[in-house]
């Protein structure tokens, strides 16, 4: 079976090994690009539109999860079906436990031929099913299904070890001033949304903005999943602060929150949260 793929893996030897193993396990697979970081993965994936993505979870710059979310958002769904996503991970990352628990297939480092053959068989099967369902009238359902699968994969890959506070939801966000001399205790019920920005996470209430250093990935498991929804790779909003959802000409969704002037973009992966009843 002929197909195209992209490999994103930051350790050159392991990337080389995965490529070599794939040559044997799937001779018809053409590797369009092999990159070493998440940003390059997004760029190359969107430029070359491969059918299969092998993404290492731990990468410098943007990690595999972030790369997958950006690719999902930027993917031109009218031009090509969503690619098959396969995460690559070392034995000791938390994701492994989540993958195993949810029976999700992944590539484990070091790559072992037998296991990789099984992954290849599954991906080939999925590609074949995708080609059969590519009749125009089946498109929206196929896209929904693919996005659902991506959500499941990304959810498992982002799994963290049980948070230190024993799983009870966070009640305060402690944010320090620029000088570090004052710590503000911001009640979580005052927070309207969180937004990841470079090294910081912005914490926004109706009145003002605070910066914290805890990554969104670590913050998310400590928040009440019903009260806060992730709507984008970098944004988590308070669900009952959402006032309006608007769809623009390109089909992209935007949120407006009570008490905040700005519009917030919704990732394609999370658009299912806002379908009209």
């Amino acid at each position: 079976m002929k197909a195209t793929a992209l490999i994103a893996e930051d350790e050159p030897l392991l990337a080389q090994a995965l490529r070599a193993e794939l040559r044997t396990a799937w001779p018809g697979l053409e590797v369009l690009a092999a990159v070493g970081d998440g940003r390059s993965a997004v760029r190359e994936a969107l430029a070359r539109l491969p059918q299969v993505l092998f993404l290492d979870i731990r990468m410098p710059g943007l990690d595999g999860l972030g790369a997958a979310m950006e690719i999902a958002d930027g993917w031109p769904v009218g031009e090509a079906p969503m690619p098959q996503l396969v995460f690559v991970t070392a034995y000791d990352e938390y994701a492994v436990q989540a993958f195993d628990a949810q029976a999700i297939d992944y590539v484990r480092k070091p790559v072992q031929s037998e296991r990789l053959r099984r992954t290849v068989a599954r991906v080939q099967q999925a590609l074949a099913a995708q080609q059969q369902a590519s009749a125009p009238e089946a498109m929206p359902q196929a896209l929904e299904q693919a996005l659902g699968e991506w959500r499941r994969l990304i959810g498992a890959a982002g799994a963290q070890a049980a948070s230190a506070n024993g799983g009870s939801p966070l009640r305060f966000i402690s944010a320090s001033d620029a000088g570090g001399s004052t710590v503000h205790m911001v009640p979580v019920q005052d927070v309207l949304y969180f937004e990841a920005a470079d090294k910081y996470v912005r914490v926004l209430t109706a009145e003002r903005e605070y910066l914290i250093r805890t990554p969104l990935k670590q913050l998310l498991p400590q928040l009440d999943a019903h009260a806060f929804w992730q709507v984008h790779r970098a944004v988590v909003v308070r669900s009952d602060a959402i006032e309006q959802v608007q769809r623009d000409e390109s089909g992209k969704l935007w949120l407006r929150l009570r008490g905040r002037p700005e519009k917030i973009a919704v990732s394609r992966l999370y658009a299912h949260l806002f379908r009209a009843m």
Partner: protein
Amino acid sequence: MKIEWRDVLRHGLLVVAFCFAIAAVITIIWPDKGYPHHLGYSLLIGPLIWLVIEFGRFPLRRPQDPGGWPQGWRGVALTLLGIVVGYYGGSALGDWLIGGGNAVVGAGQSQRDERVSLVVTVFAGVMGSYFFYSRGHSSALAARANAAERDASEARLKLLETQLEPHMLFNTLANLRVLIATDPPRAVEMLDRLNNYLRATLSGSRVLSHPLSAEFERLGDYLALMAVRMGERLRFRMELAPELAGLPVPPLILQPLVENSIRHGLEPKVEGGEVMVRARRSDDGAMLVIEVSDTGVGIDESQLASMAAISSGSFGLSHIRERLATVYGPQGRLELGALPGGGTRAVVHIPLNA
């Protein structure tokens, strides 16, 4: 204050046994009174001394005194108090119970006899006290030595855990697995490096110091292993002047610093960077100064402040500080700072005269 009643009972029985012996000695000095008579007095005086000392030591001793005995003048005073109370109280009690003039210290006795019996009592009291004191002391010392040994093995285990990080080991093996098929000579070289690294790590937790040149060689092994993994994203430079090569340093003290540089500095940076390790003599010649710097993503001031405040998540740093303080006292220091062009610098100061 918690009283160990089993210990008290044991002490009491020993005191009673001791009294039987003392009574025998006194019978030899004054055979005319007979053993039962002397035993009676002995069994009154001895336990009274013991009771005063046994229960008197609780309010007197301080928490740091080993073996539950008051140290210094407090111990001596307590022993004397016990002897005085025991001798006079016990004698008076004996006179009253056993019968007037026949006492050891009685109205009809000569001054000489009285003095001898006082000497015997003081001697016995001091001997007994000393016996219990030294027993308590030595068992406390033994317990302390045990605890110290336990602490030392715990520290060794922790050191081993930080140095023999499974993540590093398995990643190296994963890379080795690739090299065996694709580049056998390089695989052999990597295996040798790993071999050196493991040997140093396993023995490094047992020896107290090794030469700086050995420290640099082990860092070289570690960096070479990491360079295989990271490819061109990791470059490194090591500078060691020959005259410093033989100076002793605690084994693998620098390794967590290099590890931090790679993990927190270079790994998150897409283009990677350089790690530099340099050793020099301080300007006044009194200190060995070793610097580990990188051109990684760096840390900012507030991060530095929070690291100093909680020191959690930086077990490596607090561990180095602890080790330096143990070996060199306050002169052994570790400083961490941000570099102006991005990147981080850690500087270890080790006194040369130590």
